[in-house]
């Protein structure tokens, strides 16, 4: 939990990892990709405050104790949601799998939520594995990485028929929350790899599921915002927005926050540190302290008050994952109002909080 100015914040880190990207885990023949991948992540860490930078060696492989200290002791996090990323084409044992996450997490009951994953290209075997994972880990959420490479295929779309099969199966197994990460190299390469249009379709076709678009669809936040404002079950995962912009590009951070508050609203935004790309500590402190600057350029964006920050820091995620939140962290009934959401063509007055 985090306390500041007499206010208490329940912190759910909605997006974090326990990975092994050290050379001993690189698939022979795919070293370029494995190395390129982790170096790319490491470069993102460069966007955070200098005193929080790690050596590449430490970044490639950190310990369980490191994670517990960085996230729960220093990082103010109450509950952390593991988002798996498999990448078995490049990493022998996967980059960070639910199995690896769970092995670690089992030693700390109540601290972690284990999200599973699936790849529609795995067919029947994938459906069976999904059932086993839900049984074993009790997953209520899953992470989908549509750009993942799989046996010669460099990605898929959520709207592929195989994907629909898995979404239906997942829903029947009790999965409620689908976290979607958009990334490079989606087939076919002549299309925009980051296009979030497929999320739009599945969100409409699966109204009982919640779709959390991780990294707010960066680098296509314009498409994400326009879609999210029209779909009640689409959420914005803020991992990378805070880590990548709040310190390095404060002006753009303010504008991006303003746009998100306008189009998506504070009820549908979720904090995520993306640990270990960035440590939660400076992100939590910075976000709670953040105020929209007074520039005239920013004057018609919604503001974010204490109530909104409490929602984003943990209460919204707690609702999605049925995490029990002690009373002292809850909001009084009727606190804060969602940021204005535009009804097509009609400007709503900015409600503020």
């Amino acid at each position, binding site marked *: 939990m985090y306390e500041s100015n007499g206010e208490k914040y329940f912190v759910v880190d909605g997006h974090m990892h326990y990975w092994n990207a050290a050379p001993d885990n690189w698939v022979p023949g795919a070293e*370029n*990709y494995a190395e*390129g*991948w982790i*170096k*790319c992540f490491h*470069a*993102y860490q*460069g*966007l955070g405050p200098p005193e929080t930078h790690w050596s590449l060696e430490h970044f490639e492989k950190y310990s369980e104790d490191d994670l517990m200290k960085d996230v729960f002791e220093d990082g103010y996090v109450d509950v952390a949601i593991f988002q798996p990323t498999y990448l078995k084409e490049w990493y022998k044992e996967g980059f960070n799998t639910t199995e690896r996450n769970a092995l670690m997490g089992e030693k700390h009951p109540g601290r972690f939520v284990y999200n599973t994953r699936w790849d529609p290209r795995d067919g029947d075997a994938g459906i069976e594995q999904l059932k086993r994972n839900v049984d074993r880990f009790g997953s209520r959420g899953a992470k989908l990485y549509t750009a993942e490479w799989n046996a010669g295929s*460099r990605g898929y779309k959520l709207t592929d028929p195989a994907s629909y099969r898995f979404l239906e199966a997942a829903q029947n197994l009790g999965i409620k929350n689908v976290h979607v990460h958009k*990334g*490079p*190299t989606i*087939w*076919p*390469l*002549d*299309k*925009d*790899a*980051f296009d979030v249009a497929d999320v739009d379709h599945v969100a409409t076709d699966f109204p009982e599921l919640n779709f959390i678009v991780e990294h707010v669809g*960066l*680098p*296509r*936040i*314009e498409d994400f*915002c*326009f879609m999210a404002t029209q779909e009640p079950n689409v959420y914005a995962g803020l991992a990378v927005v805070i880590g*990548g*912009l709040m310190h*390095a*590009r404060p002006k*753009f951070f303010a*504008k*991006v926050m*303003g*746009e998100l508050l*306008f*189009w998506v609203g504070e009820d549908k935004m979720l904090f995520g540190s993306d640990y270990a790309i960035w440590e939660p500590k400076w992100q939590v402190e910075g976000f709670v302290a953040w105020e929209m600057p007074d520039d005239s350029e920013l004057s018609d964006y919604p503001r974010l008050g204490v109530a909104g920050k409490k929602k984003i820091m943990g209460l919204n995620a707690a609702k999605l994952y049925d995490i029990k939140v002690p009373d002292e962290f809850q909001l009084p009934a009727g606190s804060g109002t969602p940021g204005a959401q*535009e009804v*097509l*063509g*009609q*400007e709503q007055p900015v409600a503020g909080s």
Partner: protein
Amino acid sequence: MTEPLTVAGPRALLEALETVRDPELDEPITSLGFVASCTVSADGDAQVSLRLPTYFCAPNFAYLMVADAYDAVSALPGVRSTSVILADHFASDAINGGVAAQAGFVRSFDGEAVAELDQLRADFLRKAVMAGTDQVSRPLLAAGADLLAMTLGQVPPSRALARLRERRAELGLPAGDDAPLLIDPVTGVPVGAEDLPLHLRRARVTRVSIEANSGICRGMLRHRYSTPGQGETDQ
């Protein structure tokens, strides 16, 4: 009387590369710092070395930049051969080889692409038009102008306006003095009163998106390469 120059100098080379934009960020590759080096020999052999913010930058945009750089440089008078190489990228070989062979995108990425990149280019030109619309409209709005009634010719000249007109012209959208300021970037149809608020909001979020992307890309590039590129400028 002096002989006309038939050798392309380094200045001309850089200027040619300044006309090449990152289609996603709508900025010159020179300003962004993507040109690691560019040289031309006395015999007119031009060599350009490009670099990108990450190993995994989208290969379609990377391909467009390498191909456009090739076209811009090889069109210079006095250039007899052109080599454009992208370094440190997962698809470097496919892109460099494909551009050198003038193979086109589909053949460079056999089996992974079904079409050339015209559609992608057009999609991002439309985003640039929306972002440019916000850039031009914002000061006009602040001055209380009636945007719906304005034509391009009525907007005070500025670099932002010139860019907006260029992007519209590239798309085949109306770009003359009589053209309305606010048009749908897909259909070219003038924006009506009921669509105005949403159009302006979309223009603004598009601009914020492109500028934020540019900020992140520049930050990543600086982390990857500590030396500035040829013709690099601040955002």
